[in-house]
């Protein structure tokens, strides 16, 4: 007739076992109890504090209930009525005052944490990133470096000795989204006509996963987040690579190895250098295809939505493709970035992401291959 309720304790155990899960059992990269950054750590600590209090309340009240239900159950032949008790001022006062005290303790601890996280001062060397949410992908801009990219965010590792937090400014180009990478920080909503802020300082390099956490339309489920925490030198290298522009690919027989404007990399100015790697890649892949692909890309409607810096492609509606091949995934994190997936994606994005806003361009298979060959040069 009675059940023992240990749900919060069970929850705590499961959470703890999930966090031990690195050794052997499948590791969950979105576990909120596996923080790698200060806001997430703070929340984790606060949650344990809250769990202790609520767990205590639960154990106390439910054991009294269980006891009462057993002790005062009606014996089979008993038809008498028990003494009627209507109330007791002392008891009622006690069980009003004790919850007030508990709430006070809980609230003060919580309030302290709210101010600590939300009003944390921003150090001078913090990295600024502007995040723009779209249906159904993420745009990233690094204003200090002049870098624009999409869907995969790179941030530097931040250690105690060399703190280097990342401060995000979040806004939306269309409807409400939400930015949630559990191991880095709590989520913050991404609203149109409004700028919200979020910060984190991850201290362990690696890839951290998340996804959009506010229903934004049919492909809300496939608006994934990938945050790459790089050691500082690797981050610098990544930034430098992203700052380079592409060129119009040469036609066969007219290879140009090194022209281009070399400019100084000062804050805010864009660096324009020839992406020698791309030219080489064009040479080593099917040259005709890649160059033809660029022509197809630029003559079809692709350039209406996509930007490839250094070429005539200047569309802003879809993700920036300048360094597409520097990313592990396409489609906002849902597909590995390889030739086969690229071809299928261009053919009809709705195969993978029904309802996404990139239309099927109804090109021939050959055109799809050509465009892909071109995209493969965009390192």
């Amino acid at each position: 007739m009675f059940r023992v309720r240990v749900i919060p304790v069970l929850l705590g155990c499961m959470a703890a076992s999930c966090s031990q899960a690195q050794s052997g059992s499948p590791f969950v990269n979105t576990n909120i109890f596996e923080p790698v950054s200060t806001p997430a750590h703070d929340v984790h600590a606060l949650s344990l504090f809250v769990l202790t209090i609520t767990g205590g309340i639960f154990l106390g009240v439910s054991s009294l209930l269980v006891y009462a239900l057993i002790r005062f159950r009606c014996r089979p032949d008993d038809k008498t009525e028990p003494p009627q008790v209507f109330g007791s001022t002392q008891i009622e006062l006690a069980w009003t005052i004790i919850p007030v005290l508990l709430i006070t303790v809980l609230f003060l601890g919580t309030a302290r944490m709210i101010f600590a996280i939300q009003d944390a001062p921003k150090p001078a060397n913090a990295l600024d990133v502007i995040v723009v949410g779209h249906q159904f992908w993420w745009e990233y801009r690094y204003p200090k470096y002049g870098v624009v990219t999409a869907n995969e965010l790179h941030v530097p590792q931040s250690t105690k000795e060399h703190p280097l937090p990342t401060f995000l400014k979040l806004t939306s180009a269309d409807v409400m989204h939400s930015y949630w990478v559990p191991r880095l920080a709590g989520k913050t909503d991404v609203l149109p006509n409004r700028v919200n802020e979020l910060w984190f300082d991850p201290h362990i390099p690696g890839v951290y996963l998340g996804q959009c956490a506010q229903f934004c339309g049919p492909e809300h489920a496939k608006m994934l987040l990938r945050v790459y925490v790089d050691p500082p030198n690797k981050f610098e290298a990544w930034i430098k690579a992203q700052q380079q522009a592409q060129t119009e690919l040469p036609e066969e027989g007219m290879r140009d190895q090194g022209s281009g404007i070399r400019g100084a990399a000062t804050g805010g100015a864009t660096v324009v250098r020839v992406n020698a790697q791309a030219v080489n890649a064009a040479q080593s892949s099917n040259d005709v295809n890649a160059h033809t692909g660029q022509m197809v890309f630029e003559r079809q409607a692709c350039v209406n939505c996509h930007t490839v810096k250094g070429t005539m492609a200047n569309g802003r509606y879809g993700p920036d493709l300048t360094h597409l091949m520097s990313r592990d995934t396409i489609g906002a994190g849902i597909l590995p970035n390889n030739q086969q997936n690229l071809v299928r994606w261009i053919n009809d994005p709705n195969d993978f992401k029904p309802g996404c806003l990139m239309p099927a361009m109804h090109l021939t298979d050959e055109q799809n291959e050509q465009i892909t060959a071109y995209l493969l040069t965009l390192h």
Partner: protein
Amino acid sequence: MATPSVPIPNRVEGVVDQTPPRTFAGTYLEVIHDWVVTVDHKKIGIMYISYALIFMLVAGIEALMIRAQLFFPENHLISPFVFDRLFTMHGTTMVFLVGMPILLGFGNYLIPLMIGARDMAFPRLNAFSFWISAFAGLMLYFSFIGGNGLTGTGTAPDVAWFAYAPLTERAFSPGHSTDYWALALIASGIGSIGTAINILATVFSMRCKGMTLFRMPLLVWLYTVVSGMVLITISPLTACQAMLTIDRYLGGHFFDTQAGGSAILWAHFFWIFGHPEVYILVLPAFAFANEIIPVFSRKAIFGYPAMVAASVGIGFISLGVWAHHMFTMGMTSFGNAFFTLSTMLVAIPTGIKIFNWLATIWGGRVRFATPMLFAVAFLFQFLIAGLTGIMLSVSPWNWQLHNSYFVIAHFHYVLVGAIVFMIFSAIYYWYPKMTGRMLDERLGKWHFWLMLIGFHLTFDVMHIPGLLGMPRQIYTYEADRGWAIWNQIVSVGGLIQAIAVAVLVYNLVHSYFKGREAGPDPWDAWTLEWSTHSPPPAYNFASDPVVASRRPLWDLKHPEDPDSAFE
């Protein structure tokens, strides 16, 4: 005539009616006509409850479809378009076409009987409120076959039950799905406000002699608070729908962010409705508990004045907590702190209520009939739901938990674990009064245990994917997230709950024809409805009752120890 389980020793003049109920000998058409044109609160109450139970089955099927799609990662059972309609309709149906009607239905049925009145204050308004609510539900479901019709996915609402702007603006939702949502909710809201006005007028103006406000059954108190809240909170929802429709059809800019409109304003207005709405749904569950737990513990409710104060307190405080649904939207730290505090404050009167129920049981003689089984489960489950609510009120932790499966687990713990369980309890308790027949106890126990196991399998486990980072309202999830096993357990629990509900439906139908005759007072209870025949005659009481305490029938049955000596 049937023998009541405990013979009522003496009949006070006018309180008990001895006339056997008139049997209706008419054609099917005449019976249907009688129900369609009725203004009798009992018939209207039964219509509300039946309507709600039908929609509960429909919304339950929608939930099962959701659970089937989420059983495997990257599942292709249901397209994202259909999935979005399913979860939107599941939520909208459960809140507006199940929750509100069934709770207002019980209120309609019980309040006049409990206060010794002949009917509600405005019987025709009562009928109008029911029929406009019924129309609202039919219009909402027509959306499935409207628009593209049966060949497409229809135009059922697909913007989530809280329909955040600007997703609902014409630019992002060009079809009619949002319009069906807005119009159906406006109609349903009119019905709810009508019933609220009716309940308040009935309670304040039609109590029988001697029944001061502090002698009313606690159920009546809670419905009074609910009705006051309905008046204040349904209007913001109506305002939202009006503003949205103005934007969509008249070119307005309320939520048009390109013209300077604000998405966060919708969230504020909606949750100013939405949060008190869930208290409107839960307070009637408390009302049922206040009547059922004392009867099956054989003791008066402990601390009646404190229960009244706590109920009113919950009503007021709940009007000031709404932005705890918006902790992640970028309010200032002071805003977040304020709403954390106000939300935590709700725990105090709520805790008082739980302690009072515990104290009612303490020292009693607990009888575990089916209504009491559901009520006991309610106590444990509501305690847990309240505690996960405290967890969610902690603003920084909320930044992780918001919009995740943890939140879904929390609010289903309240909606199913507290409210639906108490609705089941109320059904077993008052079905005999409404139909004159007892529900089968054995089937009741099967229903209870299946429901308990299924509920816990689903909603205890559901907290875990939330803690592991799974957001809500997603039609599928990646295989490498580690969420699959938990989703599978949750889905299995859903199936078990479906079987439990099937047992209930069978019990309801079978017992109507074959159930044991109940008599006026099968549970040996103490409030005025148990002094009438089962089912009561159309006029409820042959002459107006006069009461001298909170438990008039206890005084009759125990003249040596009447409550009136203590008041």
